[in-house]
């Protein structure tokens, strides 16, 4: 058994983080730093008639005030990586010029000697706005309504139809077709650390260093180089400690470029740390779909076809991946079921709101919500058990790779195994019996099941806008310490630990002798970043591959040092040894005074590789190997979540009674890290199912603009989570790992909704939209309008 891999190794990141010794952007202090504050539009939609910065410019401590007019085309537009046919991409300037399209949009930037002076001066800028009607409702925007951009003539960003199979024929051939409207409400990601940027420009060297709380340092560097017109190799991006991202930092933001530009103007460091108010208004939001499901089935429960017509809320601008999110929904609509015909029709619309983009799950929670709600609708319509209907439509474990009507090949799966394990843990049969008894007593008890599959390890480069590979360099220093440079950019996931586990086992060194370096584009070779549950399956595989290359090289040198052919050397637990038979030959060869060695440690080999006094001809000194890993496919983790709830009939309040989850993410490097990811994902699902919603009023004002109004789940609101796993290796990578970062937010939400709907099903309830607030439930129970 491996010493580290597969073990619950404690996170090596944690001691510094929990003792406050980590360095986030705001912890990095540079002398002479200027501070930036942004004036943001208080209107969701307005013309800017004029901006008067004269008073602000002369305020104490103020160094400069910039408006959109000052920037002009000196800083390029905020990029969107979407490349869909017919996509309209609005010109997204870092500061608004004459038109603001969402409340919170940056209008002016104040640069001052401290952050208080910068903030004070914001109040002295006079903007004359002419308010315009805002369009907030997604369906109204699609129909017409006020236009976000007059020049487009409508609010449609793009339309897209995807899927395979003859959907019309499939629905026609069904015994039943069930229709349901479904709302995936807008969510605010709320990473614990808001965004932050520190930029330092050295005019002499013409080098710009940007510390940013980002998930994608290299992609950010490329984009900032383009936006700022600075050679890419003169830009260094560093992602120091990053306090969570959930996709919200998988982006390129106006503020990142602008703070860099300001540093270049003044030849001094410039810093901006996002406030929570800004974070809620002007960092990307997630979800935001209103869809219409049509699902066809036979009377025996066989699903025949699924159509999903969806209005996707883009917000006012397209951030990096905004238009791509609904396409991910389309890919995963088949869930873990055999469905011959699937069609998704997307109408993506502009609204006067902050952009949506990737938020943990990024399009897949919506797909899973659609198909898992649809399966329950089918079960209800046919009067069948929800488990039976699901099981009926599973592909068998022998049918993988499994082709879906959405155009994917699921790599591996054993859906029944995970389902049965979860049913066993929950004792589903007894649960249902107890539910029946409770119902007889007039209690509202519900059981919800979700069998999900998700797409991760993003992904093959063909399927991504900017490369789907990942890179790693592994080297052994002269002192024998192992350094891993990963192109992934972990920001809480714990890969400093799991990658070190991997290297420690593979190289036979102590865990503490391995250091994982990430997030600095001047130290680490180009990489893609951490998102889409790709860190371990793609980034980890690059590390694994680099280690294998490194071992080959080390074996060559070890063989040379031991005086044998490489084929005669074996490597185990950190030592290269001459095969036993060969060792005897070496020992008997005689002649030499000193006893010939039969083994050598990897640390000795590393030193020899660097000293290079005794290396074979053609051997490159040093001991380092790099791998750029291009995956051949995505991976498809899956699992079953089972939830039991009871509803207070008097008040509509929901109580969790059980939460059981079995997740299969392939091979596991560190079960504790996997549990942590599942915990966090489920908690965010509870947030979406019960509490969270970004509410805008009709004029585009964000009403849930603080954490006093926007309800994140707290520890006391979380039930005990009973977790287990099955382990179906992925054939896509040599370690057989899949990814677990988002599974919780994907599998859990529908299980919770299904449980609450099930609790209310005796009242004729078939569907509820999220968040399932007690008042809404109370109205249903008591038939209050």
């Amino acid at each position, binding site marked *: 058994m491996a010493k580290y891999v597969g073990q619950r190794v404690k996170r090596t990141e944690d001691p510094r983080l929990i003792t406050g010794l980590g360095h986030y952007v705001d912890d990095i202090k540079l002398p002479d730093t200027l501070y930036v504050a942004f004036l943001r539009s208080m*209107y969701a939609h307005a013309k800017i008639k004029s901006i008067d910065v004269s008073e602000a410019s002369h305020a104490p401590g103020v160094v400069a005030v910039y408006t959109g007019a000052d920037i002009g085309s000196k800083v390029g537009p905020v990029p969107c990586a979407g490349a869909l046919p017919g996509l309209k991409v609005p010109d997204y300037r870092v500061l608004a010029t004459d038109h603001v399209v969402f409340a919170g949009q940056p209008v002016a930037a104040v640069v001052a000697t401290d952050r208080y002076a910068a903030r004070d001066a914001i109040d002295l800028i006079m903007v004359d706005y002419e308010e315009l009607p805002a369009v907030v409702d997604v369906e109204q925007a699609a129909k017409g309504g006020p236009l976000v951009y007059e020049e487009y003539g409508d609010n449609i960003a793009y339309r897209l139809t995807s899927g395979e199979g003859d959907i019309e024929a499939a629905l026609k051939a069904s015994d039943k077709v069930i229709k349901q409207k479904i709302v995936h409400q807008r969510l605010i990601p709320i990473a614990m650390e808001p965004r932050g940027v520190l930029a330092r420009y050295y005019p002499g060297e013409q080098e710009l260093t940007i510390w940013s709380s980002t998930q994608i340092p290299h992609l950010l560097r490329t984009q900032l180089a383009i936006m700022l017109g600075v050679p890419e190799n003169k830009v260094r991006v560093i992602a120091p400690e990053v306090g969570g991202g959930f996709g919200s930092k998988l982006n390129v933001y106006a503020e990142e470029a602008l703070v860099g530009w300001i540093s270049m103007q003044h030849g001094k460091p410039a810093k901006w740390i996002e406030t929570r*108010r800004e974070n809620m208004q002007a960092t990307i939001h997630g979800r935001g779909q209103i869809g219409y499901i049509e699902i066809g089935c036979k009377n025996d429960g066989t699903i025949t076809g699924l159509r999903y017509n969806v209005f996707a809320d883009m917000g006012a601008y397209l951030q990096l991946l905004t238009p791509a999110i609904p396409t991910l929904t389309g890919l995963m609509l088949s869930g873990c079921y055999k469905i011959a015909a699937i069609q998704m029709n997307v109408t993506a619309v502009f609204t006067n709101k902050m952009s949506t983009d990737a938020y943990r799950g990024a399009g897949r929670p919506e797909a899973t919500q659609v198909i898992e709600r649809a399966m329950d609708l089918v079960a209800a319509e046919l009067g069948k058990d929800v488990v039976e209907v699901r099981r009926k439509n599973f592909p068998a474990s022998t049918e993988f790779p499994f082709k879906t009507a959405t155009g994917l090949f699921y790599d591996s799966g054993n859906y029944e195994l995970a389902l049965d394990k979860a049913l066993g843990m929950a004792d589903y049969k007894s649960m249902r019996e107890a539910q029946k008894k409770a119902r007889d007593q007039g209690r509202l008890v519900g059981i919800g099941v979700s069998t999900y599959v998700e797409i991760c390890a993003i992904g093959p480069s063909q399927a991504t806008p900017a490369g789907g590979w990942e890179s790693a360099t592994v080297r052994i220093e002269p002192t024998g310490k192992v350094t891993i440079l990963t192109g992934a950019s972990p920001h809480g996931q714990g890969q400093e630990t799991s990658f070190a586990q991997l290297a420690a086992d593979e190289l036979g060194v102590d865990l503490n002798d391995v250091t994982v370096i990430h997030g600095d584009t001047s130290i680490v070779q180009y990489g893609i970043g951490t998102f889409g549950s790709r860190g371990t399956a793609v980034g980890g595989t690059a590390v694994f591959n680099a280690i294998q290359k490194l071992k080959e090289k080390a074996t060559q040198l070890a063989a040379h040092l031991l005086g044998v052919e490489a084929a005669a050397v074996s490597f185990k637990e950190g030592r290269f040894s001459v095969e036993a038979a060969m060792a005897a030959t070496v020992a008997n060869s005689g002649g030499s005074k000193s006893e010939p060695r039969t083994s050598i440690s990897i640390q000795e080999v590393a030193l020899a590789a660097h000293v290079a006094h005794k290396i074979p001809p053609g051997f490159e000194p040093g001991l380092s190997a790099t791998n750029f890993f291009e995956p051949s496919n995505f991976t498809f983790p899956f699992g079953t979540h089972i939830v039991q709830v009871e509803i207070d009939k008097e008040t509509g309040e929901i109580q969790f009674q059980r939460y059981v989850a079995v997740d299969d993410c392939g091979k596991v490097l560190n079960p504790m890290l996997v549990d942590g990811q599942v915990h966090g994902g489920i908690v965010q699902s509870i947030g979406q199912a019960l509490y969270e919603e970004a509410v805008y009023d009709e004029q585009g*004002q964000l009403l849930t603009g603080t954490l006093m109004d926007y309800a994140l789940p707290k520890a006391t609101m979380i039930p005990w989570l009973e977790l287990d796993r099955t382990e179906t290796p992925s054939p896509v990578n040599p370690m057989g790992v899949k990814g677990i970062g988002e599974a919780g937010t994907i599998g859990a939400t529908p299980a919770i909704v299904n449980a609450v709907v099930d609790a209310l099903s005796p009242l004729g309830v078939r569907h509820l939209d999220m968040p399932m607030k007690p008042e809404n439930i109370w109205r249903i129970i008591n038939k209050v309008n």
Partner: protein
Amino acid sequence: MKIEGTQELRAARTRVYQALVDPEVLKRCIPGCESLERTGEASYSTTLRAGVGSIKGVFSGSVKLEDMRPPDHYRIVVDGKGQPGFLKGSGDLDLEDRDGGGTVVKYSGDIQVGGTIAGVGQRMLQGAARMMASQFFTAIEAEALAESNEPPPKHGFFRTTLRWLSGWFRRAFNG
């Protein structure tokens, strides 16, 4: 946000109406109104100072009276903006004689706020609007009751308005 209500005033309807359209009276009665300068037939520019003690929010904007049908009806439209955000509102006022003397004012309107006050004050809006309406009509009643040759009564409106606004703002943060 919709707001509606009924206020019973002890003063006679014609006097109430007069008070309700008199800019000098409005200046004293609109909560927080610091200045009211005539800009047209029945339109005024205004400065509303919101804040007491710790809170200083100044809104500048306009007040318009529309659809004036003495002594039955008119419509008031208020629009102001300042550092904490903006506030816009319009309300229809219908006056009827009250049985046994006095006036019944029925009002219904719509208030919109934006900026920080919208983002953090949502849960206080209804209470604040209610308090404001009540203060306004209490003041109007006092004005209408006052003899024309008497000096205008003091309402302490800076104080009360600032209080409601401060309450609304601080509402979100418990001690």
